[in-house]
């Protein structure tokens, strides 16, 4: 199969292959782990079944992303597992070692896929599999001599791409930070001791007061007037006790103040434990750039500024992918060849600069190159020729808007080996990742001088800074990173000029159901993905530090809200999603969906659920169905799909057959029992369709059974099938 037969453009295919690769690693890890656990005795039937299942999944996904060699290898491996499972071939002491070599070989194959060495490697792995599966094999037979070890997998960020390991739930903390916390904790104990001593004193004092009162009481109880001497003595006692009380109270207040400070220190210390300097991110960038330099031969150096800037470790980990992507972009598209650089009077070696700094409560990370810059005229033309923008829109748009289109997820600039090709999807992912962290990306470029990407992010993910305002008597919040300014809007105005820019006005009071305000009122200037607007509000409360809480599954479908926070007095305050506000004011703004926006408004086909244990297949289906106008949800197995179908109605279900726990037929049978899904079109995607499967599918009213690999044509045919 060649790439031409696939239904993805090159960038999309590259992304899917990256996904597939991560997934394949996981599958191979499962096999290796099971094999190693078994050692010289045959693994349990369950273990073999699991190994068959993961290899089977691998086979299906490999076909869809156009890697026929992997389809072949995993098919043979699956057959070998099946044969081992029914004891058709014996498990010898050498089998485990051989299987580990085979999985290592398949891992190595990914590093050379597409290169001339790949075919030879695939052939060798096939031989190894055949060795295991040879029926005449005797248990005492020796493992085949190994010709040459598989190539060491080279860590290559270009090929690895976005397949960086998931962020770990670990915190590495410098010892002195723990020491600081320990000393605060010690201080806390000290504070407690001092306060306890004061309380002890107060208790003694209250006993003394009781005694004094008793003396007075006894004196009054006697007949006649108490003697002056008694009164004088009592008064003296009281005076002493009052003085002591005043003194103790004052001391106690001081100690409480000290306690408050210690608690503050503890809180700061704990927040700092989550903080990390930009150094490790910069080191990672340096390593990535070195690898890129080796791979491409581009002469480029990295300069880093602001390594000591501190921010949340969780943020730092999530930034690894975007930074890698931006570095690739700079090396592949930014830095000119040496002769061109010399011609422009630039140093032969290009420079990529990463600068980190703190701006108020935000982390600002700038990645700039001193390369050729982005040709906005060419990009403008390409947006029009690819039909993504109308000519009028492209003409009206200024350079900043054109550059921003690069970050739109849907933008994939097609064409032959073009300097702009390949920028689309990767940069879209950068924006998505940064937006997930509550941040923003901006791009600026000077032709001939270079390009700068600026990432603005909150320093910490748990705490967010937000602008609070009132509408209709309720307080709402918008994350501060998206609030550019505040202004005043005249009654009835539909646009407002802010900083020389004409912005649309969104009447929040109307959107939130409180009727149009008739007065001149405050406006919050909101910006997201390069689009800005002014939202009118009743009153601006001001910036606050908030803790973002999820709204929960019941409220999740209300996309207007990004979450909620709880005020000091315990009231729930809703957080508005800036992306949604911007979409309301700019209906043509790029959506966060991977679907190609196209030029004509898309006809909404309905909501589809794709169930498959392969992420690559899920993404591929999402992309294909998205283009046909479907809103696509995905589930990784039948159990999750059942959970989702309980919460939402779907107009189309596309499911794999072989999945852990609840398999495809099981899922369909259960859905058919639910009255909401009795007639819903269901399409099965599978790489193993036998007559028995077809019979069961017919019984369950399945609309079509599509063999993997899935192509757009097959999918369209299945969708068009009438029952």
């Amino acid at each position: 199969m060649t790439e031409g037969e696939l239904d993805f453009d090159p960038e999309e295919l590259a992304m899917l292959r990256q996904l597939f690769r991560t997934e394949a690693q996981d599958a191979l890890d499962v096999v290796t782990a099971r094999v190693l656990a078994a050692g010289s005795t045959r693994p349990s039937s369950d273990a073999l079944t699991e190994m068959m299942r993961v290899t089977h999944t691998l086979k299906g996904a490999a076909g869809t992303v156009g890697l026929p060699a992997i389809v072949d290898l995993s098919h043979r491996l699956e057959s070998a597992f099946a044969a081992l499972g029914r004891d058709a071939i014996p498990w010898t002491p050498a089998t485990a070692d051989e299987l580990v070599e085979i999985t290592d070989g398949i891992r190595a194959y990914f590093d050379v896929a597409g290169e001339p060495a790949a075919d030879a490697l695939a052939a060798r792995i096939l031989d190894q599999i055949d060795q295991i599966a040879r029926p005449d094999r005797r248990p005492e037979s020796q493992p085949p001599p190994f010709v040459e070890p598989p190539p060491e997998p080279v860590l290559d960020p270009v090929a690895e791409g976005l397949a960086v390991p998931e962020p770990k739930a670990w915190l590495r903390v410098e010892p002195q930070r723990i020491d600081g916390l320990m000393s605060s904790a010690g201080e806390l104990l000290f504070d407690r001791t001092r306060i306890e001593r004061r309380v002890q004193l107060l208790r003694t004092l209250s006993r003394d007061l009781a005694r004094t009162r008793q003396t007075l009481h006894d004196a009054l109880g006697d007949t006649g007037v108490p003697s002056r001497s008694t009164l004088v003595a009592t008064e003296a006692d009281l005076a002493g006790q009052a003085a002591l009380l005043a003194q103790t109270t004052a001391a106690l207040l001081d100690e409480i103040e000290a306690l408050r400070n210690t608690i503050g220190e503890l809180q700061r210390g704990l927040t700092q434990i989550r903080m990390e300097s930009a150094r490790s991110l910069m080191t990672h960038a340096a390593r990535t750039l070195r690898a890129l330099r080796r791979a491409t031969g581009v002469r480029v150096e990295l300069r880093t500024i602001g390594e000591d800037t501190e921010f949340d470790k969780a943020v730092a980990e999530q930034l690894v992918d975007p930074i890698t992507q931006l570095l690739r972009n700079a090396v592949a598209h930014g830095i000119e060849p040496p002769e061109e650089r010399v011609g422009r009077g630039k140093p032969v070696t290009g420079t990529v600069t990463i600068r980190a700094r703190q701006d108020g409560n935000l982390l600002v990370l700038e990645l700039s190159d001193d390369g050729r810059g982005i040709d906005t005229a060419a990009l403008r033309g390409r947006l029009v020729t690819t039909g993504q923008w109308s000519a009028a829109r492209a003409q009206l748009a200024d350079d900043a808007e054109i550059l921003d289109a690069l970050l739109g997820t849907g933008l994939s600039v097609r064409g032959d080996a073009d300097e702009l090709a390949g920028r689309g999807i990767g940069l879209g992912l950068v924006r998505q990742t940064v937006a997930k962290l509550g941040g923003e990306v901006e791009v600026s470029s000077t032709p001939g001088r270079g390009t700068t990407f600026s990432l603005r992010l909150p320093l910490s993910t748990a705490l967010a800074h937000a602008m609070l305002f009132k509408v209709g008597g309720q307080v709402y919040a918008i994350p501060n990173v998206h609030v550019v300014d505040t202004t005043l809007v005249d009654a009835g105005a539909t646009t407002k000029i802010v900083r020389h820019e004409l912005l649309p006005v969104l009447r929040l009071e109307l959107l939130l159901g409180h009727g149009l305000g008739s007065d001149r009122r405050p406006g919050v200037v909101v910006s997201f993905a390069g689009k800005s607007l002014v939202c009118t509000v009743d009153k601006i409360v001001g910036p606050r530090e908030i803790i973002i809480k999820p709204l929960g599954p019941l409220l999740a479908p209300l996309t207007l809200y990004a979450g909620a926070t709880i005020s000091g007095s315990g009231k729930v305050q809703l957080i508005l999603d800036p992306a949604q506000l911007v979409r309301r004011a700019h209906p043509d703004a790029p959506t966060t969906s991977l679907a190609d926006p196209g030029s004509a408004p898309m006809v909404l086909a309905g909501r589809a659920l794709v169930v498959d244990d392969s992420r690559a297949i899920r993404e591929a289906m999402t992309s294909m169905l998205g283009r046909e106008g479907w809103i696509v949800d995905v589930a990784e197995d039948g159990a999750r799909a059942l959970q989702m179908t309980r919460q939402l109605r779907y107009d189309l279900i596309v499911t794999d057959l072989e999945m852990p726990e609840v398999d495809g037929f099981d899922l369909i049978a259960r859905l058919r029992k639910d009255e909401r899904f009795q007639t819903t079109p269901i399409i099965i995607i599978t790489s193993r369709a036998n007559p028995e499967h077809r019979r069961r599918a017919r019984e369950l009213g399945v609309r079509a059974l599509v063999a993997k690999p899935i192509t757009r044509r097959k999918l369209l045919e299945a969708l068009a099938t009438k029952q």
Partner: protein
Amino acid sequence: MAELRNVIVFTIGGVRYAVELRWVREVVSLGFVTGVPTAPSALGGVCNLHGAILPVLDVAVLLGGPPGPPARQGDGALVLETEEGLICALRVDQVDHVASLHESDGALIDASGRPLRLLDPTSLVRHALELVGSAGATITEPLA
């Protein structure tokens, strides 16, 4: 065959209902109720419950009737947990008592022989999810 159910009996808008005790997490007095614009009327608002966001549902709407009185701070509410583990609150006028009652055909008869309607939180919440889901879907379409 009549089955014995352990239920909590309560009144909303003059109608008496019951919910099986196994679905009831707490009986609370609601904190400040924040309205959720664009949400369907079945969702009366959200509240802070031990630092989490608690949706407050209107039973009358979920059972197909007109909206009941709005949920306000200080109103009584049952905090329910569904089969799927979703937590939500039902605003109630009054919690009457806890009892073991016989069920037949979805109706319960209390000690004085009066019928009660037995509510199933799981199906109520599923219905609420559908309503919220369809409201969410219309809202996401960009305004022309």
